[in-house]
Protein backbone atom coordinates (compact mmCIF):
# COMPACT_ATOMS: atom_id res chain seq x y z
CA UNK A 1 0.00 0.00 0.00
CA UNK A 2 1.71 3.12 -1.15
CA UNK A 3 -1.02 5.66 -1.01
CA UNK A 4 -4.11 5.56 1.17
CA UNK A 5 -7.32 6.71 -0.32
CA UNK A 6 -9.86 7.43 2.39
CA UNK A 7 -11.74 10.38 1.01
CA UNK A 8 -15.22 9.44 -0.27
CA UNK A 9 -14.82 7.55 -3.49
CA UNK A 10 -14.50 10.16 -6.18
CA UNK A 11 -14.82 7.68 -8.98
CA UNK A 12 -18.41 7.70 -10.14
CA UNK A 13 -19.35 4.19 -9.19
CA UNK A 14 -22.69 2.99 -10.36
CA UNK A 15 -25.03 3.15 -7.38
CA UNK A 16 -26.31 -0.34 -7.98
CA UNK A 17 -26.78 -2.95 -5.28
CA UNK A 18 -23.72 -4.63 -3.92
CA UNK A 19 -22.61 -7.85 -5.54
CA UNK A 20 -22.94 -9.55 -2.21
CA UNK A 21 -26.69 -9.44 -2.39
CA UNK A 22 -27.94 -12.93 -3.20
CA UNK A 23 -30.97 -13.41 -5.40
CA UNK A 24 -32.32 -16.15 -3.20
CA UNK A 25 -34.14 -19.26 -4.30
CA UNK A 26 -36.68 -17.19 -6.22
CA UNK A 27 -37.73 -19.91 -8.64
CA UNK A 28 -38.45 -22.43 -5.90
CA UNK A 29 -40.49 -19.96 -3.87
CA UNK A 30 -42.40 -18.82 -6.95
CA UNK A 31 -43.25 -22.45 -7.68
CA UNK A 32 -44.59 -22.98 -4.19
CA UNK A 33 -46.73 -19.84 -4.45
CA UNK A 34 -48.00 -21.00 -7.85
CA UNK A 35 -48.95 -24.42 -6.45
CA UNK A 36 -50.74 -22.77 -3.54
CA UNK A 37 -52.59 -20.57 -6.03
CA UNK A 38 -53.69 -23.62 -8.02
CA UNK A 39 -54.72 -25.64 -4.96
CA UNK A 40 -58.41 -24.57 -4.96
CA UNK A 41 -58.68 -25.72 -8.58
CA UNK A 42 -57.70 -29.25 -7.59
CA UNK A 43 -61.08 -30.19 -6.17
CA UNK A 44 -61.31 -33.44 -8.20
CA UNK A 45 -57.90 -34.49 -6.86
CA UNK A 46 -58.63 -33.58 -3.25
CA UNK A 47 -62.15 -35.00 -3.23
CA UNK A 48 -64.13 -35.20 -0.02
CA UNK A 49 -61.85 -33.24 2.36
CA UNK A 50 -61.78 -30.25 -0.01
CA UNK A 51 -63.18 -27.73 2.47
CA UNK A 52 -61.01 -29.12 5.26
CA UNK A 53 -57.87 -28.76 3.13
CA UNK A 54 -58.72 -25.18 2.20
CA UNK A 55 -59.52 -24.37 5.80
CA UNK A 56 -56.20 -25.75 7.04
CA UNK A 57 -54.45 -23.97 4.19
CA UNK A 58 -56.09 -20.73 5.16
CA UNK A 59 -55.19 -21.15 8.84
CA UNK A 60 -51.60 -21.98 7.93
CA UNK A 61 -51.34 -18.96 5.64
CA UNK A 62 -52.80 -16.74 8.35
CA UNK A 63 -50.20 -17.86 10.87
CA UNK A 64 -47.45 -17.36 8.31
CA UNK A 65 -48.65 -13.77 7.94
CA UNK A 66 -48.94 -13.20 11.70
CA UNK A 67 -45.56 -14.71 12.58
CA UNK A 68 -43.75 -12.99 9.70
CA UNK A 69 -45.24 -9.62 10.61
CA UNK A 70 -44.39 -10.05 14.28
CA UNK A 71 -40.85 -10.92 13.27
CA UNK A 72 -40.30 -7.42 11.85
CA UNK A 73 -40.44 -5.81 15.26
CA UNK A 74 -39.79 -8.87 17.45
CA UNK A 75 -37.13 -10.55 15.32
CA UNK A 76 -35.28 -7.93 13.31
CA UNK A 77 -35.59 -5.07 15.82
CA UNK A 78 -35.52 -7.33 18.88
CA UNK A 79 -38.56 -5.82 20.58
CA UNK A 80 -40.69 -8.71 21.85
CA UNK A 81 -44.32 -7.64 21.54
CA UNK A 82 -46.73 -9.83 23.49
CA UNK A 83 -49.68 -7.70 22.50
CA UNK A 84 -49.51 -7.86 18.74
CA UNK A 85 -52.91 -9.50 18.49
CA UNK A 86 -54.36 -6.13 19.50
CA UNK A 87 -53.94 -5.24 15.82
CA UNK A 88 -55.47 -8.58 14.82
CA UNK A 89 -58.58 -7.68 16.80
CA UNK A 90 -58.65 -4.07 15.64
CA UNK A 91 -58.52 -5.33 12.05
CA UNK A 92 -61.23 -7.92 12.70
CA UNK A 93 -63.59 -5.46 14.35
CA UNK A 94 -62.91 -2.56 11.96
CA UNK A 95 -63.71 -4.73 8.98
CA UNK A 96 -66.67 -6.37 10.72
CA UNK A 97 -68.26 -3.03 11.62
CA UNK A 98 -67.84 -1.72 8.08
CA UNK A 99 -69.44 -4.90 6.71
CA UNK A 100 -72.25 -4.91 9.22
CA UNK A 101 -73.24 -1.26 9.56
CA UNK A 102 -72.05 0.27 6.30
CA UNK A 103 -72.43 -2.63 3.94
CA UNK A 104 -68.98 -2.10 2.50
CA UNK A 105 -67.42 -4.64 0.19
CA UNK A 106 -65.07 -7.07 1.95
CA UNK A 107 -62.60 -6.33 -0.83
CA UNK A 108 -62.30 -2.85 0.67
CA UNK A 109 -62.62 -3.64 4.34
CA UNK A 110 -59.55 -5.80 4.74
CA UNK A 111 -57.02 -3.26 3.41
CA UNK A 112 -58.75 -0.55 5.44
CA UNK A 113 -58.47 -2.78 8.50
CA UNK A 114 -54.75 -3.11 7.75
CA UNK A 115 -54.30 0.65 7.43
CA UNK A 116 -56.18 1.31 10.66
CA UNK A 117 -53.90 -1.22 12.37
CA UNK A 118 -50.88 0.70 11.01
CA UNK A 119 -52.22 3.97 12.43
CA UNK A 120 -52.94 2.35 15.80
CA UNK A 121 -49.50 0.73 15.68
CA UNK A 122 -47.91 4.11 15.11
CA UNK A 123 -49.71 5.69 18.07
CA UNK A 124 -49.07 2.71 20.36
CA UNK A 125 -45.45 2.54 19.23
CA UNK A 126 -44.87 6.19 20.09
CA UNK A 127 -45.73 5.37 23.70
CA UNK A 128 -44.59 1.77 24.31
CA UNK A 129 -41.30 2.05 22.42
CA UNK A 130 -40.06 4.55 24.97
CA UNK A 131 -39.33 1.45 27.04
CA UNK A 132 -37.13 -1.46 26.14
CA UNK A 133 -36.42 -5.02 27.27
CA UNK A 134 -38.76 -6.49 29.89
CA UNK A 135 -40.49 -3.12 30.39
CA UNK A 136 -41.47 -3.10 26.72
CA UNK A 137 -42.84 -6.65 26.90
CA UNK A 138 -44.91 -5.73 29.93
CA UNK A 139 -46.19 -2.56 28.27
CA UNK A 140 -47.46 -4.60 25.31
CA UNK A 141 -49.16 -7.09 27.63
CA UNK A 142 -50.75 -4.19 29.51
CA UNK A 143 -51.98 -2.78 26.23
CA UNK A 144 -53.51 -6.11 25.28
CA UNK A 145 -55.29 -6.44 28.64
CA UNK A 146 -56.61 -2.90 28.39
CA UNK A 147 -57.92 -3.34 24.86
CA UNK A 148 -59.46 -6.71 25.78
CA UNK A 149 -61.23 -5.09 28.73
CA UNK A 150 -62.46 -2.28 26.49
CA UNK A 151 -63.93 -4.65 23.91
CA UNK A 152 -65.44 -6.86 26.61
CA UNK A 153 -67.46 -3.92 27.86
CA UNK A 154 -68.12 -1.85 24.76
CA UNK A 155 -71.82 -2.23 23.95
CA UNK A 156 -71.52 -0.82 20.44
CA UNK A 157 -69.41 -3.81 19.41
CA UNK A 158 -71.57 -6.26 21.34
CA UNK A 159 -69.33 -6.40 24.43
CA UNK A 160 -68.34 -9.94 25.40
CA UNK A 161 -71.17 -11.43 23.30
CA UNK A 162 -69.66 -10.02 20.16
CA UNK A 163 -71.28 -9.39 16.81
CA UNK A 164 -72.76 -11.53 14.09
CA UNK A 165 -71.60 -10.56 10.64
CA UNK A 166 -73.50 -10.81 7.37
CA UNK A 167 -73.01 -14.23 5.80
CA UNK A 168 -70.66 -14.31 2.82
CA UNK A 169 -72.67 -14.69 -0.39
CA UNK A 170 -71.31 -18.12 -1.33
CA UNK A 171 -72.57 -21.66 -1.30
CA UNK A 172 -71.19 -24.14 1.20
CA UNK A 173 -69.12 -25.74 -1.57
CA UNK A 174 -67.31 -22.57 -2.59
CA UNK A 175 -67.29 -20.47 0.58
CA UNK A 176 -63.74 -21.41 1.57
CA UNK A 177 -62.23 -20.34 -1.73
CA UNK A 178 -62.30 -16.52 -1.42
CA UNK A 179 -61.03 -16.67 2.16
CA UNK A 180 -58.23 -18.97 1.15
CA UNK A 181 -57.15 -16.61 -1.62
CA UNK A 182 -57.39 -13.56 0.62
CA UNK A 183 -55.12 -15.22 3.19
CA UNK A 184 -52.76 -16.36 0.45
CA UNK A 185 -52.43 -12.76 -0.70
CA UNK A 186 -51.87 -11.57 2.87
CA UNK A 187 -49.30 -14.27 3.58
CA UNK A 188 -47.37 -13.57 0.39
CA UNK A 189 -47.51 -9.85 1.15
CA UNK A 190 -46.20 -10.40 4.68
CA UNK A 191 -43.34 -12.59 3.58
CA UNK A 192 -42.44 -10.15 0.83
CA UNK A 193 -42.46 -7.28 3.33
CA UNK A 194 -40.27 -9.30 5.65
CA UNK A 195 -37.94 -10.07 2.74
CA UNK A 196 -37.71 -6.38 1.84
CA UNK A 197 -36.93 -5.50 5.45
CA UNK A 198 -34.18 -8.13 5.58
CA UNK A 199 -32.63 -6.84 2.36
CA UNK A 200 -32.87 -3.11 2.96
CA UNK A 201 -31.01 -0.45 4.89
CA UNK A 202 -34.09 -0.18 7.06
CA UNK A 203 -33.60 -3.81 8.10
CA UNK A 204 -29.91 -3.24 8.68
CA UNK A 205 -30.81 -0.37 11.00
CA UNK A 206 -33.30 -2.62 12.84
CA UNK A 207 -30.69 -5.34 13.28
CA UNK A 208 -28.26 -2.76 14.65
CA UNK A 209 -30.96 -1.56 17.05
CA UNK A 210 -31.59 -5.14 18.19
CA UNK A 211 -27.93 -5.49 19.13
CA UNK A 212 -26.93 -2.14 20.56
CA UNK A 213 -29.17 0.86 20.39
CA UNK A 214 -26.54 3.32 21.58
CA UNK A 215 -24.11 2.14 18.95
CA UNK A 216 -26.79 2.51 16.27
CA UNK A 217 -27.57 6.05 17.46
CA UNK A 218 -23.91 7.01 17.43
CA UNK A 219 -23.82 5.63 13.88
CA UNK A 220 -26.36 8.31 13.00
CA UNK A 221 -29.49 6.16 13.05
CA UNK A 222 -32.69 7.72 14.33
CA UNK A 223 -33.55 4.66 16.39
CA UNK A 224 -36.88 5.96 17.61
CA UNK A 225 -38.16 6.67 14.12
CA UNK A 226 -36.96 3.28 12.89
CA UNK A 227 -38.57 1.41 15.78
CA UNK A 228 -41.91 3.20 15.53
CA UNK A 229 -41.95 2.61 11.78
CA UNK A 230 -41.13 -1.06 12.22
CA UNK A 231 -43.82 -1.44 14.85
CA UNK A 232 -46.49 0.23 12.75
CA UNK A 233 -45.75 -1.53 9.46
CA UNK A 234 -45.64 -4.84 11.28
CA UNK A 235 -49.28 -4.19 12.21
CA UNK A 236 -50.57 -3.98 8.63
CA UNK A 237 -50.91 -7.63 7.69
CA UNK A 238 -51.86 -8.56 11.25
CA UNK A 239 -54.86 -6.23 10.99
CA UNK A 240 -55.66 -7.48 7.50
CA UNK A 241 -55.48 -11.11 8.61
CA UNK A 242 -57.82 -10.31 11.51
CA UNK A 243 -60.30 -8.81 9.07
CA UNK A 244 -60.33 -11.88 6.83
CA UNK A 245 -60.43 -14.31 9.75
CA UNK A 246 -63.35 -12.54 11.44
CA UNK A 247 -65.39 -12.47 8.24
CA UNK A 248 -64.68 -16.14 7.61
CA UNK A 249 -66.03 -16.99 11.08
CA UNK A 250 -69.10 -14.80 10.45
CA UNK A 251 -68.99 -13.57 14.03
CA UNK A 252 -66.65 -11.54 16.22
CA UNK A 253 -66.00 -12.00 19.90
CA UNK A 254 -63.26 -10.40 22.02
CA UNK A 255 -62.03 -13.81 23.19
CA UNK A 256 -61.31 -14.84 19.59
CA UNK A 257 -58.93 -11.96 18.99
CA UNK A 258 -57.66 -10.62 22.28
CA UNK A 259 -56.48 -13.81 23.97
CA UNK A 260 -52.82 -13.64 24.95
CA UNK A 261 -52.50 -17.19 23.60
CA UNK A 262 -52.61 -15.72 20.10
CA UNK A 263 -49.74 -13.34 20.80
CA UNK A 264 -47.82 -16.17 22.42
CA UNK A 265 -48.38 -18.32 19.34
CA UNK A 266 -46.96 -15.64 17.02
CA UNK A 267 -43.89 -15.37 19.22
CA UNK A 268 -43.44 -19.14 19.47
CA UNK A 269 -43.70 -19.66 15.73
CA UNK A 270 -41.10 -16.99 15.04
CA UNK A 271 -38.76 -18.36 17.72
CA UNK A 272 -39.14 -22.02 16.70
CA UNK A 273 -38.54 -21.15 13.07
CA UNK A 274 -35.80 -18.60 13.68
CA UNK A 275 -36.21 -15.05 14.93
CA UNK A 276 -34.80 -12.38 12.66
CA UNK A 277 -34.75 -14.56 9.54
CA UNK A 278 -37.21 -14.32 6.67
CA UNK A 279 -37.91 -18.04 6.31
CA UNK A 280 -38.00 -18.71 10.07
CA UNK A 281 -41.53 -17.54 10.88
CA UNK A 282 -42.83 -19.33 7.78
CA UNK A 283 -41.23 -22.61 8.84
CA UNK A 284 -42.35 -22.07 12.44
CA UNK A 285 -45.94 -21.39 11.41
CA UNK A 286 -46.09 -24.48 9.20
CA UNK A 287 -44.51 -26.64 11.93
CA UNK A 288 -46.85 -25.49 14.67
CA UNK A 289 -50.03 -25.56 12.61
CA UNK A 290 -49.20 -29.07 11.40
CA UNK A 291 -48.24 -30.24 14.86
CA UNK A 292 -51.40 -28.80 16.32
CA UNK A 293 -53.54 -30.41 13.64
CA UNK A 294 -51.95 -33.84 14.18
CA UNK A 295 -52.14 -33.68 17.93
CA UNK A 296 -55.76 -32.50 17.91
CA UNK A 297 -56.68 -35.39 15.65
CA UNK A 298 -54.82 -37.83 17.92
CA UNK A 299 -55.69 -36.51 21.35
CA UNK A 300 -58.66 -34.23 20.73
CA UNK A 301 -58.76 -30.62 21.89
CA UNK A 302 -57.64 -31.49 25.38
CA UNK A 303 -54.89 -30.51 27.77
CA UNK A 304 -52.97 -33.53 26.52
CA UNK A 305 -52.81 -31.95 23.07
CA UNK A 306 -51.31 -28.78 24.57
CA UNK A 307 -48.79 -30.75 26.62
CA UNK A 308 -47.66 -32.80 23.62
CA UNK A 309 -47.26 -29.65 21.52
CA UNK A 310 -45.28 -28.00 24.31
CA UNK A 311 -42.94 -30.95 24.79
CA UNK A 312 -42.22 -31.24 21.08
CA UNK A 313 -41.43 -27.53 20.91
CA UNK A 314 -39.05 -27.79 23.84
CA UNK A 315 -37.24 -30.63 22.12
CA UNK A 316 -36.99 -28.63 18.89
CA UNK A 317 -35.50 -25.68 20.78
CA UNK A 318 -33.06 -27.98 22.55
CA UNK A 319 -31.63 -29.05 19.21
CA UNK A 320 -32.18 -25.75 17.41
CA UNK A 321 -31.54 -23.06 20.02
CA UNK A 322 -31.77 -20.27 17.43
CA UNK A 323 -34.81 -21.76 15.76
CA UNK A 324 -34.74 -24.20 12.87
CA UNK A 325 -33.67 -21.73 10.18
CA UNK A 326 -31.37 -19.68 12.42
CA UNK A 327 -29.52 -22.72 13.74
CA UNK A 328 -29.17 -24.45 10.38
CA UNK A 329 -27.80 -21.25 8.88
CA UNK A 330 -25.33 -20.84 11.73
CA UNK A 331 -24.09 -24.37 11.07
CA UNK A 332 -23.97 -23.73 7.32
CA UNK A 333 -26.55 -26.47 6.75
CA UNK A 334 -29.50 -24.39 5.63
CA UNK A 335 -30.99 -25.77 2.41
CA UNK A 336 -30.81 -23.07 -0.24
CA UNK A 337 -34.59 -23.21 -0.64
CA UNK A 338 -34.89 -21.69 2.84
CA UNK A 339 -32.05 -19.20 2.53
CA UNK A 340 -34.06 -16.03 2.00
CA UNK A 341 -31.83 -13.64 3.93
Amino acid at each position, binding site marked *: *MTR*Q*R*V*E*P*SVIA*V*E*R*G*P*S*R*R*RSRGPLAAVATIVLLLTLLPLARPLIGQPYNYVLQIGMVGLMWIALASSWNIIGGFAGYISLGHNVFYGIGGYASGLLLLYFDWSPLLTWPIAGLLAVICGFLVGLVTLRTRGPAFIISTVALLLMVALLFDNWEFVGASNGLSLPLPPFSIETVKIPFYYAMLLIAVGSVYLSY*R*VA*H*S*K*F*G*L*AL*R*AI*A*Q*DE*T*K*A*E*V*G*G*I*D*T*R*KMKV*TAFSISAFFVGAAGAVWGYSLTYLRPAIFFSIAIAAEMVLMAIIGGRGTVAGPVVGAILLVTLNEISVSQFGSTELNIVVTGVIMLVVLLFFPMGVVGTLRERGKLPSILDWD
Partner: protein
Amino acid sequence: MTTLLDVAGLSKGFGGLQAVNDCSFTVERGAIAGLIGPNGAGKTTAFNMISGVLRPDAGAVLVDGVDITGMMPHKVARRGVGRTFQITRELGDLTVLENMVVPTARGRLSGLFGARMLRDEEERAMELLDFVGISRLADEKARNLSFGQRKLLEFASALMADPTLLLLDEPAGGVNPALLERMMERIRTLNEQGLTFLIVEHNMDVVMNLCRSIVVMAHGEVVLTGSPAVVQNDDRVLDAYLGKV
Protein backbone atom coordinates in the same frame (compact mmCIF):
# COMPACT_ATOMS: atom_id res chain seq x y z
CA MET B 1 -7.23 28.39 13.28
CA THR B 2 -10.87 28.29 14.26
CA THR B 3 -12.51 26.46 17.10
CA LEU B 4 -14.31 23.28 16.05
CA LEU B 5 -15.35 21.91 19.44
CA ASP B 6 -16.19 24.16 22.33
CA VAL B 7 -16.99 22.50 25.65
CA ALA B 8 -18.22 25.07 28.14
CA GLY B 9 -18.84 24.38 31.81
CA LEU B 10 -19.97 20.78 31.30
CA SER B 11 -21.09 18.96 34.46
CA LYS B 12 -22.50 15.53 35.19
CA GLY B 13 -23.19 13.80 38.47
CA PHE B 14 -24.15 10.17 39.14
CA GLY B 15 -25.98 10.14 42.44
CA GLY B 16 -23.52 11.56 44.92
CA LEU B 17 -20.56 11.35 42.56
CA GLN B 18 -19.63 14.41 40.49
CA ALA B 19 -18.09 12.63 37.50
CA VAL B 20 -17.54 15.81 35.47
CA ASN B 21 -17.51 19.19 37.13
CA ASP B 22 -17.60 22.49 35.26
CA CYS B 23 -15.33 21.21 32.54
CA SER B 24 -14.29 23.62 29.75
CA PHE B 25 -11.90 23.24 26.85
CA THR B 26 -11.74 23.78 23.10
CA VAL B 27 -10.40 21.84 20.15
CA GLU B 28 -9.16 23.71 17.09
CA ARG B 29 -10.17 22.63 13.62
CA GLY B 30 -7.49 20.39 12.12
CA ALA B 31 -5.92 19.52 15.48
CA ILE B 32 -5.06 16.25 17.12
CA ALA B 33 -5.93 17.03 20.72
CA GLY B 34 -5.41 14.73 23.69
CA LEU B 35 -7.61 14.31 26.75
CA ILE B 36 -5.75 12.61 29.56
CA GLY B 37 -6.18 11.98 33.23
CA PRO B 38 -6.15 9.16 35.77
CA ASN B 39 -8.82 6.45 35.92
CA GLY B 40 -12.19 7.85 36.87
CA ALA B 41 -11.22 11.41 35.90
CA GLY B 42 -14.41 11.76 33.85
CA LYS B 43 -12.97 11.52 30.33
CA THR B 44 -15.43 8.94 29.03
CA THR B 45 -18.28 10.77 30.71
CA ALA B 46 -17.22 13.93 28.89
CA PHE B 47 -17.20 12.01 25.59
CA ASN B 48 -20.65 10.67 26.37
CA MET B 49 -21.98 14.17 26.88
CA ILE B 50 -20.34 15.55 23.74
CA SER B 51 -21.72 12.72 21.59
CA GLY B 52 -25.21 12.99 23.08
CA VAL B 53 -25.15 9.60 24.79
CA LEU B 54 -25.52 11.35 28.16
CA ARG B 55 -27.37 14.57 28.84
CA PRO B 56 -25.26 17.06 30.81
CA ASP B 57 -26.56 18.47 34.09
CA ALA B 58 -25.12 21.84 33.14
CA GLY B 59 -22.94 23.43 30.49
CA ALA B 60 -22.93 23.48 26.72
CA VAL B 61 -21.28 21.75 23.77
CA LEU B 62 -20.77 23.73 20.59
CA VAL B 63 -19.61 22.21 17.33
CA ASP B 64 -18.61 24.72 14.71
CA GLY B 65 -20.45 27.38 16.69
CA VAL B 66 -23.71 25.40 16.79
CA ASP B 67 -25.10 24.44 20.18
CA ILE B 68 -25.61 20.67 20.19
CA THR B 69 -26.16 20.28 23.94
CA GLY B 70 -28.69 17.59 24.75
CA MET B 71 -29.21 16.54 21.13
CA MET B 72 -29.90 12.89 20.42
CA PRO B 73 -26.72 11.01 19.47
CA HIS B 74 -27.88 10.47 15.87
CA LYS B 75 -28.29 14.24 15.43
CA VAL B 76 -24.82 14.84 16.85
CA ALA B 77 -23.45 12.17 14.52
CA ARG B 78 -25.13 13.79 11.54
CA ARG B 79 -23.42 17.04 12.47
CA GLY B 80 -20.12 15.34 11.77
CA VAL B 81 -19.11 14.19 15.24
CA GLY B 82 -17.99 10.56 15.30
CA ARG B 83 -16.80 8.57 18.28
CA THR B 84 -15.45 5.21 19.31
CA PHE B 85 -16.08 3.43 22.58
CA GLN B 86 -13.47 2.55 25.17
CA ILE B 87 -15.16 -0.83 25.58
CA THR B 88 -15.79 -1.64 21.92
CA ARG B 89 -19.39 -1.98 20.89
CA GLU B 90 -19.28 -3.96 17.67
CA LEU B 91 -22.57 -5.49 16.57
CA GLY B 92 -21.59 -9.12 17.13
CA ASP B 93 -24.30 -10.82 15.05
CA LEU B 94 -23.52 -8.67 12.03
CA THR B 95 -20.57 -9.26 9.76
CA VAL B 96 -17.65 -6.85 9.85
CA LEU B 97 -18.77 -5.42 6.53
CA GLU B 98 -22.35 -4.98 7.77
CA ASN B 99 -21.00 -3.22 10.85
CA MET B 100 -19.26 -0.84 8.51
CA VAL B 101 -22.34 0.06 6.47
CA VAL B 102 -24.69 0.61 9.41
CA PRO B 103 -24.04 4.38 9.30
CA THR B 104 -25.32 4.45 5.71
CA ALA B 105 -28.73 3.35 7.01
CA ARG B 106 -29.21 6.75 8.60
CA GLY B 107 -31.09 8.14 5.62
CA ARG B 108 -34.72 8.25 4.72
CA LEU B 109 -37.06 5.32 5.12
CA SER B 110 -37.15 4.90 1.35
CA GLY B 111 -34.38 2.48 2.31
CA LEU B 112 -37.06 -0.19 2.57
CA PHE B 113 -37.11 -0.60 -1.19
CA GLY B 114 -33.45 -0.03 -1.86
CA ALA B 115 -30.55 -2.40 -1.43
CA ARG B 116 -28.97 -3.10 1.94
CA MET B 117 -25.60 -2.10 0.64
CA LEU B 118 -24.81 -0.12 -2.51
CA ARG B 119 -21.78 -0.97 -4.55
CA ASP B 120 -19.97 2.27 -3.82
CA GLU B 121 -20.69 1.90 -0.12
CA GLU B 122 -19.25 -1.57 -0.15
CA GLU B 123 -16.15 -0.32 -1.92
CA ARG B 124 -15.74 2.51 0.54
CA ALA B 125 -16.19 0.11 3.47
CA MET B 126 -13.64 -2.30 2.03
CA GLU B 127 -11.23 0.57 1.47
CA LEU B 128 -11.50 1.59 5.09
CA LEU B 129 -11.16 -1.98 6.34
CA ASP B 130 -8.09 -2.24 4.17
CA PHE B 131 -6.86 1.04 5.61
CA VAL B 132 -6.90 -0.43 9.13
CA GLY B 133 -5.77 -3.83 7.85
CA ILE B 134 -8.76 -6.08 8.54
CA SER B 135 -10.41 -6.28 5.11
CA ARG B 136 -9.84 -10.04 4.95
CA LEU B 137 -12.26 -10.34 7.88
CA ALA B 138 -15.07 -8.53 6.04
CA ASP B 139 -17.46 -11.48 5.99
CA GLU B 140 -16.65 -12.66 9.49
CA LYS B 141 -19.20 -12.16 12.27
CA ALA B 142 -17.93 -9.26 14.37
CA ARG B 143 -18.18 -11.31 17.55
CA ASN B 144 -15.40 -13.58 16.26
CA LEU B 145 -12.86 -10.75 16.14
CA SER B 146 -9.97 -10.47 18.56
CA PHE B 147 -9.74 -7.60 21.01
CA GLY B 148 -7.35 -5.59 18.86
CA GLN B 149 -9.36 -6.26 15.69
CA ARG B 150 -12.45 -4.93 17.46
CA LYS B 151 -10.61 -1.71 18.23
CA LEU B 152 -9.72 -1.42 14.56
CA LEU B 153 -13.29 -2.11 13.46
CA GLU B 154 -14.55 0.47 15.95
CA PHE B 155 -12.14 2.95 14.40
CA ALA B 156 -12.95 2.07 10.79
CA SER B 157 -16.73 2.14 11.28
CA ALA B 158 -16.49 5.58 12.86
CA LEU B 159 -14.67 6.74 9.73
CA MET B 160 -17.41 5.35 7.50
CA ALA B 161 -19.70 8.23 8.45
CA ASP B 162 -17.14 10.77 7.21
CA PRO B 163 -16.93 12.76 10.43
CA THR B 164 -15.27 16.16 10.72
CA LEU B 165 -14.46 15.55 14.37
CA LEU B 166 -13.58 12.12 15.70
CA LEU B 167 -13.50 11.31 19.40
CA LEU B 168 -11.35 8.26 20.13
CA ASP B 169 -11.70 6.68 23.56
CA GLU B 170 -8.50 4.77 24.30
CA PRO B 171 -7.78 3.56 20.77
CA ALA B 172 -4.53 1.99 21.94
CA GLY B 173 -5.87 0.26 25.05
CA GLY B 174 -4.91 -3.42 24.82
CA VAL B 175 -3.74 -3.12 21.23
CA ASN B 176 -0.44 -4.84 20.42
CA PRO B 177 2.58 -2.66 19.49
CA ALA B 178 2.45 -3.47 15.78
CA LEU B 179 -1.21 -2.52 15.56
CA LEU B 180 -0.53 0.51 17.70
CA GLU B 181 2.06 1.75 15.23
CA ARG B 182 -0.41 1.30 12.38
CA MET B 183 -3.18 3.05 14.28
CA MET B 184 -0.98 6.09 14.95
CA GLU B 185 0.12 6.28 11.35
CA ARG B 186 -3.51 6.11 10.22
CA ILE B 187 -4.55 8.86 12.59
CA ARG B 188 -1.80 11.10 11.21
CA THR B 189 -2.78 10.36 7.60
CA LEU B 190 -6.42 11.19 8.30
CA ASN B 191 -5.44 14.34 10.14
CA GLU B 192 -3.42 15.48 7.14
CA GLN B 193 -6.58 15.03 5.10
CA GLY B 194 -8.39 17.42 7.40
CA LEU B 195 -9.99 15.24 10.09
CA THR B 196 -9.88 16.72 13.61
CA PHE B 197 -9.22 14.34 16.53
CA LEU B 198 -9.81 14.38 20.24
CA ILE B 199 -8.12 11.35 21.78
CA VAL B 200 -8.44 9.88 25.25
CA GLU B 201 -5.43 7.69 25.90
CA HIS B 202 -3.42 6.33 28.82
CA ASN B 203 -0.40 5.43 26.70
CA MET B 204 1.74 8.56 27.09
CA ASP B 205 4.00 7.71 24.15
CA VAL B 206 0.97 7.81 21.89
CA VAL B 207 -0.33 11.04 23.36
CA MET B 208 2.98 12.88 23.35
CA ASN B 209 3.68 11.66 19.83
CA LEU B 210 0.38 12.55 18.24
CA CYS B 211 -1.07 15.47 20.09
CA ARG B 212 -0.07 19.08 19.85
CA SER B 213 -2.45 20.20 22.55
CA ILE B 214 -3.45 18.28 25.64
CA VAL B 215 -6.24 18.68 28.17
CA VAL B 216 -5.57 17.14 31.58
CA MET B 217 -8.54 16.12 33.72
CA ALA B 218 -8.69 14.90 37.30
CA HIS B 219 -11.73 14.36 39.52
CA GLY B 220 -14.00 15.65 36.81
CA GLU B 221 -12.20 18.95 36.45
CA VAL B 222 -9.77 20.33 33.91
CA VAL B 223 -6.45 20.69 35.69
CA LEU B 224 -4.38 22.05 32.86
CA THR B 225 -4.29 22.54 29.10
CA GLY B 226 -1.19 23.00 27.00
CA SER B 227 1.35 21.52 24.64
CA PRO B 228 3.05 18.16 25.38
CA ALA B 229 6.15 20.02 26.60
CA VAL B 230 4.14 22.09 29.05
CA VAL B 231 2.10 19.15 30.28
CA GLN B 232 5.13 16.91 30.74
CA ASN B 233 6.87 19.45 32.91
CA ASP B 234 3.98 20.49 35.07
CA ASP B 235 3.89 19.14 38.62
CA ARG B 236 0.12 19.30 38.72
CA VAL B 237 -0.09 16.55 36.12
CA LEU B 238 2.11 14.20 38.08
CA ASP B 239 0.13 15.06 41.20
CA ALA B 240 -3.09 14.25 39.41
CA TYR B 241 -1.81 10.82 38.38
CA LEU B 242 -0.45 10.18 41.85
CA GLY B 243 -3.77 11.22 43.33
CA LYS B 244 -2.50 14.28 45.15
CA VAL B 245 -4.99 16.79 43.73
